[in-house]
Each structure stands twice: as C-alpha cells, then as structure tokens.
C-alpha cells in the first residue's frame, strides 16, 4: 500500500474529530441505557471509529451510504444530525424517522444516508441500486455499502458484487471485519484467509487493510472512491477491526477469545491516534481537550432536547405506510 495516498495533518485531525464524536456518543448511549433512560437493541461501534471517519473525509453529502444495525459510527462520521439521532433513539416524533425506525433504521437523505437495514447482507443490493442511480445521474457520486464479516457469507453479497462489477457501478463495498458475527468467530464462518480475496471472483479489485489505522484506511478508501468517481467500477475493501462491546449491549462476551480481546484493547485505535496527533505536533493537548469538550456539549444538547420532545401519536401508524395516508 506504499503508493496509496496518506491523510495530511488537517485531515488526520478531522478523522480524530469524527472518531471522537463516535466514541463519546457511544459512551453516552451506554450511560443512558444503563440508567434505563433509553430502551433499545444497541450494537455498539466502539473500536470501529476510525473506519468510517477515515472514509467520510473523502465523501460529500450527496454521496450515498447504506449501513446496518451497527451503523451509528458510519452515520456520525458522514454528518448525521445529532439532535435528530438522539430524538430517534428516544423514539420521539422529532427523530429523523419520527420514532418509527429506531436505531436499526436511521435515515437522513440530505446527508446521503439513504438506508439502514437490520437484515444481514441487505445493505449491498440496495447500495448497488443507489450506485446505478448515481451512474445515471452522471454526477460522479459514489455509493458505499457497509457490512460485516458475517455478511460476506450471505447470498446478497455475491449477487451484489457481481452485478456492480458487471455494470461498472460506483460502489464501495466496505466490509468491517471485527472478527465476530454475533457469537460466531470467523473460524466458524469461512475458510478463505481474506474476504477481500473474493473480489477476484467478480473481476473487481479487493484489498484488506488495518481499518484501525487512519493512514491505511484513508488510503484504501480514497483510491476506491476515486476509482468509482472515474467510472472504473466498484472495489471491495476489507477493513480489519474489533468490537469492544460485543455484539449486542448487555451480552456476556464469554464466547470471545480472551487473548484476542486483550490484544485488541491494548491497540485501542482512539488513544493511539490521539497520542500520535500530539507527538506529531498536529494538535496540542489543549486543542484536543477543546475538541472533546465541544463534542460533549453537542451531545448534552442533543440528549436534553431528545427527552423533552413528544412521542408520536398512534395516528402515525396510518402515515408513511404509503405516500397517501391510510383513511
């Protein structure tokens, strides 16, 4: 990957800003859930912050992304409005989806966040269609499909990559490989060493990178995005990472390999990036503290507003089923 582009100082700082928002937001969600204030299935992205942050610095608002139940990191990195996010998590009428979607179906078209699905694999066929739309628009837009290592074994993966490659669609298939699918370690899901090796079977480039390394992740994403914008077709990126909070908040985690977990913890990408920013003189300790405080304040505001907002009325069951309200 030596010939891949690297993020400059300003970009690295922006990656840190996005990743920090994700991390602090995750901590706040967990705090609110522990306090019983939020009740929902929560799939924490803690540990995977760098991936969408290093990707999104190369995306515009009108680039499309489709993500999954574990996708709040993907959204925040792309600029999902915090206020509507929290209102949605709290099930309020002021949420982006009026409380109808919840954490697994967060949507924000103005920012290009078109679809969030709770069905494993299903982000890929839809992102392929958004890629087709983007190609027809002729505006050099790209479409990103986020999915996990487990999703790489479902049929929708195969059909989508084949179709996107055949039609030369501007799609980035981003596999966030956190080594587990619920309680299933990758050893129980496939034989092949790298999921990116499957790209060859579709005639598209595939690459495996350390998704927790801002340089590697930024470089791979940038190259794939430019290839897509240039009309050269899709790319499969396998970003290696780890889930620090297990699959679903509140689970035991007993099934996880202790050493693997410990090693991952030692390599938590967040403190590593923070230390690097300081050591490389990209940002002073004070500057970072200011950024972190600022983010905390934004979250405070979003949380407060969310819990003050009204719940949707039962009449909402008749709205948005179809464009025309049901009589």
């Amino acid at each position, binding site marked *: 990957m030596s010939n891949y582009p690297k993020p400059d100082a300003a970009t690295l700082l922006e990656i840190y800003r996005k990743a920090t928002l994700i991390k602090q937001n995750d901590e706040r969600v967990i705090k609110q859930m522990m306090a019983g204030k939020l009740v929902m299935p929560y799939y924490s992205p803690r540990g995977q912050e760098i991936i969408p942050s290093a990707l999104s610095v190369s995306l515009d608002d009108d680039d499309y992304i489709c993500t999954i139940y574990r996708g709040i990191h993907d959204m925040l990195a792309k600029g999902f409005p915090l206020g509507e996010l929290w209102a949605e998590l709290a099930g309020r009428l002021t949420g982006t989806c009026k409380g109808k979607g919840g954490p697994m179906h967060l949507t924000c078209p103005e920012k290009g966040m078109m679809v969030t699905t709770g069905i494993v694999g299903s982000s890929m*066929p839809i992102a392929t269609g958004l890629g087709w739309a983007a190609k027809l628009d002729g505006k050099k837009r790209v479409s990103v499909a986020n999915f996990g290592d487990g999703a790489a074994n479902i049929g929708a993966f195969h059909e989508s990559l*084949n179709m996107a490659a055949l039609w030369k669609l501007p799609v980035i298939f981003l596999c966030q490989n956190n080594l587990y699918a619920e309680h299933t370690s990758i050893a129980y899901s496939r034989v092949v060493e790298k999921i990116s090796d499957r790209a060859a079977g579709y005639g598209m480039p595939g690459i495996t990178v350390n998704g927790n390394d801002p340089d590697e992740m930024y470089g791979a994403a940038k190259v794939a995005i430019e290839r897509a914008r240039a009309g050269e077709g899709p790319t499969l990126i396998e970003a290696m990472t780890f889930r620090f909070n297990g699959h679903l908040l509140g689970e035991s985690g007993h099934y996880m390999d202790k050493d693997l977990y410990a090693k991952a913890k030692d390599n938590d990408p967040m403190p590593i990036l923070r230390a690097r920013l300081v050591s490389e003189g990209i940002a002073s300790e004070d500057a970072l503290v200011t950024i972190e405080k600022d983010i905390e304040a934004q979250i405070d505001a979003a949380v407060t507003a969310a819990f003050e907002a009204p719940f949707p009325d039962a009449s909402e069951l008749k709205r948005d089923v179809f464009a025309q309200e049901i009589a």
Partner: protein
Amino acid sequence: MTDTNTALAPEAASAEIQKMTMVEAINLALHDAMEADPKVLVLGEEVADPQEGGVMGVTKGLSTKYGEDRVKSTPISEQAIIGAAIGAAVGGYKPVAEIMLMNFITVSMDMIVNHAAKLRFMSGGQTGVPMVIRTMTGAGFSTGGQHSDYLEAWFAHTAGIKVVAPSNPDDAYGLMRAAIDDPDPVLFIENLPSYWTPAPVTKQLVPIGKAKVSREGSDITVIAHSLMMTHSLAVAEKLAAEGISVEVVDLRTISPWDRETVLASVRKTGRAVVVHEAVKQFGIGAEIASVITEQLWGTLKRPVERVGAAFSAVPFSKPLETAFAPQPDTIAAAIKAALA
C-alpha cells in the same frame, strides 16, 4: 355501472380503438412510460433486446429505443434485481423490475417485504420506493410445481406494497401506467395463459384500488381477478342463457382492494362467490369473504362461497393440472350452489 375507467364505456369502445394482446398492451405501456419520463427504468433477466426483449417479448424494443443504461438485462440474481430497483427508486428513479415467474419471487422476499415495502415507514416518510415488480404466473401449460403459483395473498398481507392483477389488455395498460406513476411499490401480476388474446386498448389510466363491474347482474356477485375473471365472465354469459343473472366484479387491485364496489354489488345481489387461482386455504378469498360478512350481515342471504385451487403443489400431468385449478365448470357449480 361503477366503472372508473371511463374510456371503457361502450361509446369509447369504437372502431378507432386499437385491439392488442396483453403482451402488446404492457409493452406499449412501458414504451409510453419511458417516453414520458426519463426516470423510468426497466431491469430483469432477458429484458433488453440483445436477449430478445424478455422471454415473452413483453419488453421488446425498449433497450433499442431508450438504451441499455435505462433498460438492463441482469444476471440471474433476484435479490440484486430487486435490491438494485429499490436503490434506484430511493435514488429518485422509477424502476420496473421483472421477476420472470412468480415462484422466483421467493428468492427476493427479503428485499421486497423487509425493504421495498417498509423503507417509507421505517424512515418516517423521508424515503420512498416508487418501483413496479412485474411477474408472470398461472397454471395451464404443464410447467409443474415451481412455475405457476399465485402468491398474491402473501403481499396483500404485507403493509407498504400494492398488488394489482389485470384480466385484460386494457386494464393491463392502464394499471401499468398507474403503477409506474405510483409513489409506492406495486406488484404487477401477469397471467401467462391470458397473454395472447387481443382486445381493445383505450390507453386510459386505471386507478389503483378501483375494482370494476365488468358485467351487471342481479342474482349473485362473482368477485375475481386475472384469468379467473375471464373464466367468470364466460360462465356468467353461459348462465344468462339459463336465466341466472350474474354480476361480475373484476378486482383489478388486490391490495388495497375496493371494498366500496364489492360491497355495493353484494348489497344488491345478497349473494357472493370469490374466485382465485391461488390455493383456497388462507387465500385472498378469505379476507374478502370476511369483510363482506362483517359489513353485510343481515343483508347477505347465505355464506360467501370461495373457489380456489386444491391444497397441493401445481401438478404436471395434464388431467391433474386441470383438476387442480378452478375451471369454468367449478365456478359455475359454485354459483349454482350459492343460489340453491
């Protein structure tokens, strides 16, 4: 008559109105829609002209006229076909996706039910999925257990997707234009045996959700759609000779179905038979019969009769296939039973 498709009124069915087959009518509707709106797309297996414009030629000429960017033949990938259509729809286009035969729709159920039908609701109305899924089915050609099922009941039971099933070329044209214009996903069911019978096509829009009284009568109401509608009209004709006056209502839209038209007819006749080619048990006839019973209790002279296929897979052997699906005689017998 409660005929919402005005151009179908007698005076309009005049000389200058072209006669065409169901295949030609749907093909014309697709041509007119693509011509009228550059956002309309077509995709599916074999749909482009290098693949002969569809196995039955329903999409002939479209790719030649509008290009292979808008009209795409796909790999055999039903999940990706519907997924691509959903994505394109969410991205502002109006795709018409073909699933060659209704049994193959089983491969794309997740895309249709969990996504196409739900994205508008789950996004709180921020996104919509204005797409049409064309599919073909129907027993009669000895294609056996995996090629001729009617599965409309599954989709009628699913909130967020509309279901239409034309019985004639005129409705096929009008419903296809309406389905493409509709802001929500519409499943468009075509009957294979009905493909080649020519009939007048007025090129009028047929509103989704409106049934049609195709034949007026006073003794009993028969409610049907697709090929069973054609059978029912023939039976009504035959029974008229025996002095039985049958009113025939063509459902046209199965979900959301036209309660007003159906109830008005049964309120008048006091008797009803619901006919569909799908397996009878847990078929759409049960919902229609239940609503008629709930709404017209007291008026209804006897329970609603339901006619549907046998509870088995579609058999290959001709005599079995004929015994499996409702035939004109089956419908006539049910009508007489309801009048006995």
